[in-house]
């Protein structure tokens, strides 16, 4: 049955929260009403990655890319585009190009991207296994089950040079090889879907958009190491991803692509979902395994590594969602093909969740070795509201900042470590001149202090003490000696903490201290916050020359600290002011400034 048009509606969490479900329903309804229901296929897909412009609707074969679509637009899209063949110009992404076509290839956001992990996101219906199969889905599994030995599979991963995408970048083939070589009656395969970095949502989108890629990869791993049981550990706060996984697993089981005697090969493999409660530390592999076993999510010392002794003391391969999603493609196309993508240090691609003060926030997948400048300016469209670029934070609470001097650093595992940051799982938060770096460091440290499990002392007490010092500095009570104390505690935490959470949590502080030492000094010596963020160090002041005495600010002030009579310059009582910024937004004459 051929359809003449295909409407792809984004069903990722970001678009769904802006009513994409209703758009989908309305389009179906309108197609029915206008009598084209059997000529048009309407599909709900995974995330397109261009979340800034969501909800996204794409119509094929014209490849029209509609952005910021509202449920009310459904009538027009069907009546104009489908029936009359006229694109609805006001909803097209690139309105100047509307005369021609706003095709996906024309959009700069997609031009520099290379999609392996997100190959199916935004194209297939994630709740329909047939569409995955049609895009070469389960072809890698066929190969692995019938044509390859476990050694062959691991050899292909070795040739590909795939390194773990969860942050540390450990070679995947080595992990698998360790587990394969351990004699054991039972082995396990685990997918780490406990994505917890603030601002990161790559794994969620992959699972929502292409759940079968992870199921297929885990089954391949089962064959390679001799395991018959897999677990997906995912946080309960990802309901859509869980739902799509459940649907995918049910469909796979029905076709016999999961379960007993897969495709008649005699190989059995099954997968279960385990829900996490959303503790950041459970993304650490040993804590995650503890949680799966029903214990408190706390890390345990390594070695032994999980690959040798993991779940219930049995060899366990644990990989991150993005790593898994790469594997079917590597097996299908061969390790050699994969090894040619990227640069010398790191092969393949990396998915980043681009957020913060950037024009096009969203999901991007680029070949390794792409520079940060390309990501921020070419793909991301530069800094929002014409402000000045200050830094990019990568690696979440374990990473560091990259400044404008290092914008041309290629993004790969080695280069990022060299400049004092790390790849991390892929969160990329862009900061502009309005961001105070001491405040940013405080934000991340606050997060890790909250999420510390408390098992080991360096992390539990070190983090809290460092946070106390940062608060002192942003309150204007810091001394220069505090900077030395921060460094000293950081070094201890790095050396003595039990797991990566504690070892890396001082990174945001150390990295901002290294690159933005002047800002720390401004807080300590001049008692000023150059970005105007730290409330204790700023005051709102009315310029009497510009103030017209309109009383607008005085009426809006929530604590009534602005006084003055009509048509006379007003003043702010600094002892009562809570620095909420309402007056600045209210003033029409630009008379209020931060000092």
């Amino acid at each position, binding site marked *: 049955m051929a359809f003449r048009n295909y409407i792809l509606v984004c069903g990722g969490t970001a678009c769904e929260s802006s009513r994409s479900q209703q758009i989908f329903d309305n389009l179906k309804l309108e197609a029915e009403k206008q009598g084209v229901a059997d000529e048009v296929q309407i599909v709900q897909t995974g995330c397109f990655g261009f979340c800034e412009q969501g909800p996204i609707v794409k119509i*094929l*074969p014209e490849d029209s890319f509609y952005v910021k679509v509202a449920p009310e637009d459904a009538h027009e899209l069907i009546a104009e585009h489908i*029936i009359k063949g006229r694109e609805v110009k006001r909803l097209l992404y690139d309105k100047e190009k509307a005369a021609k076509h706003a095709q996906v290839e024309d959009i700069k956001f997609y031009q520099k991207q290379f999609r392996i992990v997100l190959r199916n996101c935004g194209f297939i219906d994630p709740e329909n296994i047939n569409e995955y*199969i049609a895009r070469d889905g389960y072809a890698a599994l066929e190969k692995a089950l019938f044509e390859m030995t476990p050694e062959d599979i691991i050899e292909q991963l070795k040739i590909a040079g795939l390194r773990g995408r969860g942050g540390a970048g450990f070679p995947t083939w080595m992990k698998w090889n360790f587990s394969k070589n351990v004699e054991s009656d039972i082995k396990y395969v685990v997918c780490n879907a406990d994505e917890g970095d603030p601002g990161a949502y790559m794994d969620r989108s992959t699972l929502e958009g292409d759940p079968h890629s992870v199921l297929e990869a885990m089954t391949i791993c089962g064959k390679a190491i001799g395991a018959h049981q897999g677990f997906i550990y995912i946080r309960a706060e990802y309901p859509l991803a869980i739902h799509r996984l459940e649907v995918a697993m049910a469909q796979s089981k029905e076709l016999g692509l999961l379960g007993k005697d897969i495709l008649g090969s005699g190989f059995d493999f099954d997968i279960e979902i385990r829900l996490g409660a959303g503790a950041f530390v459970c993304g650490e592999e040993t804590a995650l395994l503890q949680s799966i076993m029903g214990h408190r999510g706390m890390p345990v010392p390594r070695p032994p590594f999980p690959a040798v002794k993991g779940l219930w003391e049995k060899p366990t391969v644990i990989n991150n969602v993005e790593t898994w999603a790469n594997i079917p493609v590597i097996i299908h196309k061969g390790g050699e093909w994969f090894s040619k993508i990227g640069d010398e240090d790191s092969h393949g691609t990396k998915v980043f969740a681009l957020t913060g003060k950037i024009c096009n926030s969203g999901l991007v997948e680029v070949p390794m070795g792409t520079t940060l400048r390309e990501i921020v300016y070419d793909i991301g469209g530069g800094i929002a509201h014409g402000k000045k670029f200050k830094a990019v934070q990568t690696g979440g609470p374990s990473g560091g900042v990259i400044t404008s001097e290092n914008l041309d650093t290629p993004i790969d595992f080695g280069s990022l470590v060299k400049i004092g940051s790390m790849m991390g799982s892929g969160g990329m938060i862009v900061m502009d001149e309005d961001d105070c770096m001491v405040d940013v460091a405080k934000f991340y440290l606050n997060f890790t202090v909250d999420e510390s499990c408390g098992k080991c002392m360096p992390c539990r007490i070190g983090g809290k003490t460092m946070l106390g010092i940062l608060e002192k500095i942003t309150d204007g009570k810091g001394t220069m000696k505090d900077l030395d104390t921060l460094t000293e505690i950081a070094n201890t935490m790095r050396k003595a903490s039990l797991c990566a959470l504690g070892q890396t949590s001082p990174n945001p502080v150390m990295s901002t201290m290294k690159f933005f030492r002047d800002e720390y000094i401004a807080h300590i010596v001049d008692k000023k916050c150059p970005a105007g963020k730290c409330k204790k160090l700023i005051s709102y002041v009315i310029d009497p020359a510009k103030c017209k005495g309109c009383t607008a600010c005085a009426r809006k002030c929530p604590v009534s600290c602005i006084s003055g009579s009509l048509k006379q310059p007003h003043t702010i009582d600094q002892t009562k002011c809570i620095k909420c910024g309402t007056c600045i937004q209210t003033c029409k004459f630009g008379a209020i400034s931060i000092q």
Partner: protein
Amino acid sequence: MAKISLEELRKLREQKQDALQKRDLAGKDSQIIVGMGTCGIAAGAKTVLDEFLKVLDEEKIENVAVTQTGCMGLCYVEPTVEVIVPGMPATIYGKVDAAVAREIVKSHVIGKKLVTDHIYDRPSVDIMKA
């Protein structure tokens, strides 16, 4: 017992690939664009579009995308259809009905020969008649 065999999976993939490929312009080098402004629709462009899809399906032609556009400005010879096939001049046909649509597929798309009686704009009518 396996529920689906290797052969069945491969067959299923082939089948579904077909359906999915029709969604994408990638891999298609030819285009049939039907003018579907109000005038075109009133003159029967809808039937023409349906016929194109039907014939392409019958002939199992995979490299042609059937799309639609607004009014081409040749309202006096609606329905109009633009056909773009590699190695052939881009051609605009007018007064197309279901029968002509069928002929366009058979002679223009498959036989690489223009359907001269129905050329109205591109390539220039004078050149064609000369």
